[in-house]
């Protein structure tokens, strides 16, 4: 069969979400942020809530998320997305509010904000991109950096005696009464992308049911600062990140 006979509107099965803008993302080739943006846009499109969703973008590589996903946005100071999300949700209780944060943003400078927003059980969705590094600023150690992992500030590898232990903040958040759904996902292959999308969808549905805070961690790559090709970074993540940050639901009620 000729390719021309296949590439016809009636044979369309999958393409770019209408909730994504045409702006080319500034992310490095192969960056997990792009995949997560895509599935977030798809969930918003499929739920028909484009004009009912307000995103809060972080400080970090995802600072420009507002250019790529065609919803209303605010951009928070570093780590303060949960505070801004709280205010936004309380002012507009009928909207869906989603805070999108990196691990430096959420688990370091913004630890207080995320803990208290989750403990208050704000009816928001939090998407937490854990790439174990400060991506935007050139690859410094994050609280989530694995032991032994080389970064710009741990050139010989992270040491527990000097740098402390990697922080499983998602497990801590699951302890808080205010959270209803806490899960850890990834986006490196088609199966994991579909699972992560389902998790994000569930988080949005929980919001409508006023069940409390839904928290979706995506174990991610930062191939540029890990100094690997995108494909190698995905493999490294599977081999090194998943044993320490195991995938799956941590809390669902």
């Amino acid at each position, binding site marked *: 069969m000729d390719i021309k006979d296949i590439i016809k509107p009636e044979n369309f099965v999958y393409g*770019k979400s209408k909730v994504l803008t045409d702006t080319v993302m500034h992310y490095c080739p192969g960056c997990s942020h792009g995949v997560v943006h895509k599935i977030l846009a798809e969930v918003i499109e499929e739920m028909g809530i484009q004009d009912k969703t307000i995103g809060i973008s972080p400080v970090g590589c995802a600072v420009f998320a507002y250019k790529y996903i065609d919803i209303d946005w605010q951009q928070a100071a570093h780590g303060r997305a949960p505070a801004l999300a709280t205010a936004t949700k309380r002012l507009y209780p009928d909207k869906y509010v989603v805070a999108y944060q990196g691990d430096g943003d959420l688990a370091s400078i913004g630890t207080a904000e995320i803990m208290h927003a989750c403990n208050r059980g704000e009816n928001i969705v939090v998407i937490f991109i854990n790439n174990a590094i400060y991506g935007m600023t050139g690859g410094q150690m994050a609280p989530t950096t694995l032991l032994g992992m080389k970064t710009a500030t741990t050139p010989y590898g992270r040491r527990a005696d000097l740098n402390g232990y990697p922080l499983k903040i998602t497990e801590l958040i699951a302890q808080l009464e205010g959270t209803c759904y806490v899960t850890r996902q990834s986006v490196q292959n088609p199966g994991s992308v579909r699972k992560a999308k389902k998790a994000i969808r569930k988080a949005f549905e929980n919001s409508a049911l006023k069940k409390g805070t839904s928290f979706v961690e995506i174990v991610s790559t930062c191939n540029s600062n890990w100094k690997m090709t995108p494909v190698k970074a995905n493999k490294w993540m599977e081999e090194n990140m998943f044993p320490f940050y195991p995938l799956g639901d941590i809390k669902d009620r």
Partner: protein
Amino acid sequence: MAFKGAIVVDIEKCKGCSVCVANCPTQTIALAKKVNSKGYPYCYMENPDNCTGCGNCATVCPDSVITVYRVKI
């Protein structure tokens, strides 16, 4: 039931990351020897006859540049 597929790549927006290539179960796609205007080698169907239209490549593409078509045969 068998399927025959084909993809269209938005060449100018492809960043040549190769994540799609690694996730194609039928070795349909590869990175071109040529580059786009940004200097990235772009994804193309090297073996178009292999494509089943499974959509794996488009699902993992961080830049959403692949559109998938499929017919039953």
